């Protein structure tokens, strides 16, 4: 069966768009082929800086023929109806239709419509230009006098179609003035001549001969392999960087990897600054000494050409630029060191954190207050925490962070150490941003913990107060990440915190109190404020908002526990409990763990079955009677020994379980509940719940409710599956 080769040759496509574009090209073309009834064998797409290419193997030469029966009007229907039917079915005379008998409703016409499949090349000639015209580039443009849009000017199109063994045909189409053909071009400088291509194999080979590696994965391999080799040969190792590797592979058609050097004097600048400088501006890799892990005064660059001097001029040029860049970085770093972090804080008065949440300065004050409140709860020195909270954001105003925002926090640590701050204060400058994601490290130093929690909780409480919660896939302020960060810090450090109290504290000091452009507590907002435009939106810290935030935490906790392999129904069973401790993340997790262990035991499984049975009976009977059977049982109505025994057992187990829970001995609580099991079993064996005597029956139902109530000391068993 024939294959398609499709190439769109243009001016340089941004590196970051290439991978997605190749995928889009494949999907758009193959989806349309399938829609047209052309089921293919396989497809692969590629991108280089100057071309998108697609190879589709095994496309049928023709679409299958279609046969369709079209039901028409009754025999003897009005002329109008007959005419419409003929037109719709593509017939010229009613004699061409057949008559189908129907003794009940009357005979009617049927037309057999046959649609012959078209040659695939004709279908492609429609599909391919459509794909070009509707291609989903993130940004596209016009050029010259044309109206066509593409990511950058589109110069030529290859579209060949035919079986492997024969010379293919050119798919006949044009997009504006660009006509499809079989002519492609090689490397811009090394092999600029045009050449003709037939099939995919021949295309790839000719490109290779013309110094173009079509497959980005292959280009990445070449870069990585050669970069490692070059570093190794000098006794160093490459600092690998997947994002950079992907980017440089998208900047070259013919990767040539070279190594350059810089003045070792620059190594006085923090390694991260050197790396960011060389990476962001020059798209070069850095290398390190494998023994010490410190950077070496070398860099690896990826050029796009084989220079006639072996790359000497290219290396020299890159070294010049890197020298200038590192001089700038060194200047920034040294300038930063001249100003103490606290002396920068005044500027935060001018910097708006969020128009409804006030300035950064106000935020820093709030974080400090909350962090100090948290300090004793996490075992941190209050003064250190206050100091850390005061300095933690100051590096945002430094030259280095201005240049490389990704170094925020880290630079704060360096500058704090340089001005002689306590090690834990310096560490908190960096670590209070952590964890940044599920894979990131969680701070463990108490000072870092206090500031990290305060930072995240202030954010959450603030955005909840102004009703900017995440919705669906939209979470512009990374609030889910902040909540997950709080959860991980609490759990991984085994912290006992009552989130409700803390959030309430944060809420009470929330942006609200500050006047200027910041909203205040809803009760304090005056008409004048609204008139003057000072108040954009009123905010409130009502209990409902707080409850909503806590529910968000519960939700995030569920996601987190599920990812760690916990059963979501057990999490639900614990979260469904009312009362104290439901905002204590660690306690929730311990309950879930105890519950999971318990349910693995025989007692646990049987008790669960018993409780479920009790709950089911209750549900049915309560629904039938339209009443609830709760409250104390009447011992005078017991008729069987098992009723007595269960009643006693419940009383005892419930008391013990509640006492154990109060001690936070969740395993003990489970054991106490487990003592119910033989009595529940015996009760169901010997006692008929639906007794004839109405009072006895109601009493027995209340006893069942007693089982349910007792187990609520540890979990809501009705939420547990199985």
């Amino acid at each position, binding site marked *: 069966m024939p294959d398609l080769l499709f190439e769109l040759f243009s001016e*340089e496509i941004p590196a970051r768009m290439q991978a997605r574009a190749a995928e889009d090209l494949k999907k758009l073309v193959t989806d349309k082929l399938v829609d047209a009834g052309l089921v293919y064998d396989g497809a692969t797409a590629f991108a280089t800086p100057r071309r998108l290419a697609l190879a589709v193997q095994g496309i049928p030469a023709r679409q299958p023929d279609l046969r369709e029966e079209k039901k028409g009007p009754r025999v003897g229907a009005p002329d109008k109806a007959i005419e419409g039917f003929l037109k719709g079915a593509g017939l010229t005379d009613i004699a061409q239709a057949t008559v189908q008998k129907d003794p009940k409703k009357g005979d009617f016409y049927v037309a057999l419509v046959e649609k012959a499949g078209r040659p695939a090349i004709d279908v492609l000639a429609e599909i391919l230009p459509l794909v070009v015209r509707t291609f989903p580039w993130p940004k596209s443009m016009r*050029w*010259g006098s044309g109206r066509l849009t593409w990511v950058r*000017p589109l110069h030529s199109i290859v579209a060949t179609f035919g079986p492997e063994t024969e010379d293919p045909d050119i798919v006949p189409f044009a997009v504006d003035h660009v006509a499809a053909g079989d002519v492609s071009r090689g490397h811009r400088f090394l092999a600029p001549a045009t050449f003709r291509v037939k099939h995919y194999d021949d295309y790839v080979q000719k490109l290779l001969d013309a110094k173009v590696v079509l497959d980005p994965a292959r280009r990445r391999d070449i870069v990585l392999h050669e970069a490692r080799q070059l570093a190794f040969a000098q006794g160093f190792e490459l600092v690998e960087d997947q994002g950079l590797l992907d980017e440089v592979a998208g900047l*070259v058609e013919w990767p040539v990897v070279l190594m350059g050097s810089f003045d070792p004097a620059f190594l006085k600048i923090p390694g991260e600054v050197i790396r960011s400088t060389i990476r962001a501006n020059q*798209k070069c890799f850095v290398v390190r000494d494998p023994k010490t892990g410190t950077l070496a005064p070398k860099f690896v660059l990826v050029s796009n*050409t084989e220079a006639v001097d072996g790359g000497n001029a*290219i290396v020299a040029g890159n070294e010049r630029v890197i020298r200038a860049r590192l001089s700038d970085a060194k200047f920034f770093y040294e300038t930063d060191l001249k100003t103490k972090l606290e002396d920068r804080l005044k500027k935060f008065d001018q*910097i708006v954190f969020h128009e409804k949440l006030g300035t950064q300065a106000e935020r820093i004050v709030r974080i400090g207050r909350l962090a100090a409140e948290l300090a004793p709860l996490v075992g941190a020195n209050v003064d250190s925490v206050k100091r850390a909270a005061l300095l933690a954001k100051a590096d945002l105003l430094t030259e280095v962070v201005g240049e490389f925002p990704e170094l925020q926090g880290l630079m704060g640590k360096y500058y704090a150490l340089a001005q002689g701050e306590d090690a834990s204060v310096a560490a908190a400058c960096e670590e209070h941003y952590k964890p940044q994601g599920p894979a990131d490290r969680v701070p463990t130093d108490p000072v870092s913990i206090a500031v990290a929690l305060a930072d995240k909780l202030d954010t959450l409480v603030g955005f909840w107060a102004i009703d900017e919660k995440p919705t669906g896939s939209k979470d512009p302020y990374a609030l889910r990440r902040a909540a997950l960060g709080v959860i991980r810090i609490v759990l991984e450090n085994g912290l006992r915190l009552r989130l409700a109290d803390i959030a309430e504290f944060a809420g009470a000091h929330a942006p609200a109190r500050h006047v200027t452009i910041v909203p205040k507590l809803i009760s304090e907002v005056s008409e004048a404020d609204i008139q003057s435009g000072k108040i954009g939106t009123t905010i409130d810290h009502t209990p409902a908002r707080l409850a909503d935030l806590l529910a968000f935490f519960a939700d995030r906790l569920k996601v987190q526990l599920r990812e760690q392999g916990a059963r979501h129904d057990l999490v639900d069973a614990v979260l469904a409990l009312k009362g104290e401790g439901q905002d204590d993340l660690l306690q929730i997790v311990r309950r879930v763990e105890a519950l999971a262990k318990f349910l693995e035991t025989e007692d646990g499984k049987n008790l669960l079955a018993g409780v479920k049975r009790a709950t089911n009976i209750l549900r049915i009977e309560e629904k039938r009677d339209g009443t609830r059977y709760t409250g104390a049982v009447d011992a005078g109505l017991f008729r069987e020994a098992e009723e007595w025994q269960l009643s006693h057992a419940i009383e005892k187990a419930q008391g013990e379980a509640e006492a154990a829970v109060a001690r936070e001995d969740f395993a003990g609580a489970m054991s106490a509940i487990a003592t119910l099991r033989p009595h529940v079993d015996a009760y169901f064996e010997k006692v008929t719940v639906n007794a004839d005597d109405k009072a006895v029956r109601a009493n027995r139902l209340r006893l069942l409710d007693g089982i349910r109530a007792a187990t609520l000391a540890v979990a809501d068993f009705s939420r547990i599956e199985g």
Partner: protein
Amino acid sequence: MPKSDLPPHMRPERSFQGLILALQRYWADQGCVILQPYDMEVGAGTFHPATTLRALGPKPWHAAYVQPSRRPKDGRYGENPNRLQHYYQFQVILKPSPENLQQLYLDSLAAIGIDTALHDVRFVEDDWESPTLGAWGLGWECWCDGMEVSQFTYFQQVAGFECAPVSGELTYGLERLAMYVQGVENVYDLNFNGREGAERVSYGDVFLQAEQEYSRHNFEHADTTMLFEQFRMAEGACKTYLDAGWRRDPKDAKASRHLMALPAYDQCIKASHVFNLLDARGVISVTERQSYILRVRELAKACGEAWLATAAGGAG
């Protein structure tokens, strides 16, 4: 003319002025009109009406020129080897952008001695946007051995109007390019006139004192009261000239004409530069900054609209 035919002092790799002359010659050979710098303070070559306004409307236009550019905030008192508050851009504008614009650009590099057999020239994504001009385009920064030597842009919109046909704009940072081809590390060490010994004039000889003086002026002494007033006056004048220049046809908007688009646009340029000075003096807050930019943009848009109602803008 092959560069070997040039006398030594005129070679682009030896002389700053030789580099400029080589570029002018090359683009003249491509049919460009070689203009002289616009006689007002601007932040970039794009502000020259030969780019901003000529990019609008249907008429073909090919021009190249050097434009002294002022970025008051970039002053470093002559102490930074790379940063200047006054520098030169070489600007090329081709409307409609020709099919072989990339090749023309590469050939211009060859004309100033950058041989692609030796050097690694790359087109790296860089989308251009000028909030003050209400303009944007897509293109690249052009790298030579890792150094950005030019900006290459296909204008999509200028002064809020769609560009049709599209102009291709090339901007060469002349000092940086000259430092590269001359192989010097400090801009002030550039050989300006290509002579040696006592006859040699360096970039520093020409501009170092100016950089020092203007840095003092831009950061410390520029009269902000006067500048605020100048901004208001320029803004007011721009609007006045625009109003006075319109000959509106109430029945057919397309038949409306404008008679003073260029003088009005001068005031827009003036306002923009005054804003840059105020910004360098640090007297404009973050929130105000945005509103000043918007005010200049409104002027630019109104000037663009006026230009489209002139003969050169394609009306009548």
